[in-house]
């Protein structure tokens, strides 16, 4: 008798190699399924159980997941772009042109990176509006809202630093204007401006600093806070559901008790 795909997968899960990596073995009991989440370094950030209602589109519009999706696209397209891009003057502009007109699929990767970046900024704002208007930022989720604000800042800084890298007129003047805004900080504004650009004007040092920030420091910082953000969803009681909030539960119980009394 031929085995089904599920049986093959079960056999695979029973092997010593599989069990040495994933620890949990075969079986679809609640325990096994919970262990599969809990014992995976990536999945353990998430809750082992989620209410089906919370996975419906209307609950979240999937905005957080979509934001993560654009972030992953940005990492996956950004790393290949780094193979052809030199962060130097004036080579950066020529490399950008090469990526558009010479490199195979360069145009596709660059445009995917660019459009995903725009989409990510939009999705972060949409996600925050959705969380705000549902009241999902309230106790016990205040800290995760703060992490979210940090992630908003990371997103905007990633956008801003990436903007300079094509080294065209738009980039140059946008960063000139943007970095001059930093000069408006009281007392230390000029110093911040100088350290950010590595000089007095947008030049080779500024391009290199923005490149390092854009490709190393900011993405790693963002990933660090994304990990905390996801882990806190689990720690704060899973995705927000109005019906299971303590205040709502108490109010519903009180209403039910009052109804019961009237009935007597």
């Amino acid at each position, binding site marked *: 008798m031929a085995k089904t795909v599920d049986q093959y997968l079960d056999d695979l899960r029973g092997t010593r190699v599989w069990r040495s990596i994933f620890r949990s073995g075969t079986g679809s009991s609640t325990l096994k399924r919970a262990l599969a989440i809990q014992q995976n370094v990536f999945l353990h950030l998430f809750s082992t159980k989620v209410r089906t209602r919370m996975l419906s589109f209307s609950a979240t519009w999937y905005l957080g997941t979509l934001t993560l999706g654009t972030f992953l696209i940005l990492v996956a397209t950004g790393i290949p772009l780094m193979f052809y891009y030199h962060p130097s003057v004036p080579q950066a502009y020529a490399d950008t042109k090469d990526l558009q007109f010479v490199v195979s699929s360069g145009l596709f990767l660059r445009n995917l990176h660019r459009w995903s970046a725009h989409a990510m900024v939009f999705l972060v704002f949409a996600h925050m509006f959705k969380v705000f208007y549902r009241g999902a930022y309230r106790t016990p989720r205040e800290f995760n809202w703060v992490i979210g604000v940090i992630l908003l800042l990371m997103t905007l800084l990633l956008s801003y630093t990436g903007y300079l890298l094509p080294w065209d007129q738009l980039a140059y*003047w946008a960063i*000139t*204007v943007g*970095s*001059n*805004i930093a000069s408006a900080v009281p007392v230390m504004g000029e110093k911040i401006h*100088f*350290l950010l650009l*590595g*000089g*007095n*004007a947008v*030049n*080779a*040092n500024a391009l290199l600093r923005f490149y390092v920030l854009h490709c190393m420091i900011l993405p790693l910082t963002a990933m660090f806070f994304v990990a905390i953000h996801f882990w806190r969803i689990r720690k704060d009681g899973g995705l927000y559901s109005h019906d299971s909030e303590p205040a709502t539960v108490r109010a519903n119980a009180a209403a039910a008790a009052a109804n019961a009394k009237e009935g007597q």
Partner: protein
Amino acid sequence: MADEIKKTDDVNRRQFFLKLGLGSLGIAAAGTAAFAYQYLDPNVLYEPSPVVNAGKPDRYPLGSVTIDVNSGIYIIHSDEGYFSLSAVCTHLGCMTAWKPELNMIACPCHGSKFNEDGKKIEGPAPKPLPWKRIWLNDDGDLLVDRSTDVPPLVPDSYVRV
């Protein structure tokens, strides 16, 4: 015996090493911060010289306002003599342009407008365009020091040829 030790202000061995360890870490952290700041603050800059050679004065006819886009300055030949204005907008650093048809200097970014003395006419710019030090060198070329502001409209701020 144990009570006696608690009553005094002496630190025991564990507390001593804890404080020593935290203190050392604190000093190391402060040193790292100072090190990082010094490292990120460049000591040598490969930037263009602030002094610009604007060429012979007869390049600039009387009543003309001429921009040098590369160095970001205007050379203006007025009745009182030659003077130089920064072309960098005092709002957010965009390069302004002379509009002969309006007889004023205008910034393309956020619409600030200045007259040819650098005085603001309208827009978000918080300050007038600064005047720059200008002088003649031995070859008879006009030189402008972009790093030195001079007071506007005073006799010393002009060069007469």
